[in-house]
């Protein structure tokens, strides 16, 4: 169970990191799990853009929940849980990069 979760979480982090670097030109090296996204320049407007990108990337439809996400890690955690709650394995893989097929 633990190993499955960690692989999924890692995958989620990788994909959201990819979006942040692609859409906001963030320095991947600064994207630690405890990095605050607003301090990296992704403010509330940017978060709205990021949510759209995440929905497209993961095939998710997120409710307009009043959830406060500050750090990169919180976003990853939140999306990972959203994926787990709706059968994450059905989410389409992104076209932009290849994932290991063995998993």
């Amino acid at each position, binding site marked *: 169970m633990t190993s499955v979760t960690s692989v999924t979480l890692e995958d989620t982090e990788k994909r959201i990191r990819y979006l942040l670097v692609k859409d*906001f*030109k963030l320095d991947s090296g600064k994207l630690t799990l405890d990095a605050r996204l607003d301090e990296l*320049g*992704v403010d509330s*407007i*940017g978060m*709205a*853009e990021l949510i*759209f990108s995440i929905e*497209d990337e993961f095939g998710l439809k997120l409710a307009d929940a009043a959830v406060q996400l500050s750090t990169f890690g919180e976003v990853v955690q939140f999306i990972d849980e959203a994926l787990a709650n709706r059968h994450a394995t059905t989410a389409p893989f992104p076209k932009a990069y290849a994932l290991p097929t063995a998993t």
Partner: protein
Amino acid sequence: MRRVAVTGIGLVSPLGHDAAAVFEAARDGRSGIHRLQIAGAHRLAAPLAATVQFDVTQHFEPLQARLLDRFSQFAVVAARRALADAGCDLSEAERERAGIFLGNGMGGTLSMDEGYQTLYGENSDRIKPTMILKGMHNAPAAWIGIENGWRGPNLTYSTACSSSSVAIGEAWLRLACGATDVAIAGGCEAPLSLGSLKAWEVLRTLASEDTADPTRSCKPFSRNRSGMVLAEGAAFVVLESWERALARGAAIHGELIGYGLTTDASHIARPSVDGQAAAITAALASAGIAADEVDAINAHGTGTQANDVAETAAIKRVFGARASQIPISATKALHGHLLGAAGALEFVLSLLALKHNTALPTMHLDVADPECDLDYVADVARAGAAGRTMLSNSFAFGGTNAVLALRAVD
């Protein structure tokens, strides 16, 4: 009323990015108009425009750039250049009162076009969350205010093709009456989306292509004129009270001495000789000068049938027999019609014409028109002819006529 000095010029224009280059292009008749390469250009009857060479990555970090439509990017960069040229640092107290006065006609039409392409063209709801913030008319002025921390009036005027002349004139009023001491005033426009180009085309306002030489397609006051050519860019000036400019030893480009503003209140698109003549007269009155003190005029001169005839008649009405002795320049033949930025660019060209005492040419005036029979300085600049005092005319759909009066520095 206090005197008002122009101490800074900032340009992002189809004729270049600094005052010297733009003046030389206008003086030497080098056109910024060319065939336009955009997606869908083949659907336009005459895909022409005057565009700006602009590398956004040189001016903005990616995170900021994504929030600014092209018209805001132009405005912020032109305002930076104007402030750098003015070389003035504002105290905190001055920033509290410093004002930004911006004219714009179309808003962030590129961003709006892109959003509607997503919504209607692709039938997708994935419009960018930044669409409103990029498209709203007051975004460029807001960004200039944010960048400089100017907390006085931050106003956007949208009166179609007279927008930025109105902005400069309204700034002049605030400065002259002492409500503010320093202002950035001008306009910006980035109207070259397919939707906007098509809308202007079907209104039958755009020039057909000069097949021999597309750069000569805009022909103000020529009998074979066929309309205007859309253009993009921004032009700003720094205005400050004469005393402040003198006290800090600023280089003064010229003096803004008057502003006439009238409204046709007749037809939404057809120009009114009455309204235009009244605006010229109002500008003279506000400047406290007589008609015979005007040495030269930068015309609105769009190259449409209706404007050029009406403007000629309005100038005749105000100046009478002397009208034919006043050099009249229509620089849109070269830089195209920047809509909400046109008045500001032409105000700057008028300043430069005075500074160099050179009447700028009206290019491509190939065929005389009996209804346009004044001295338009056809095809060749005239040294020594701009004199000391000029008017810069801007008229508009909607009927808002704005005329700026300016004077050379002694």
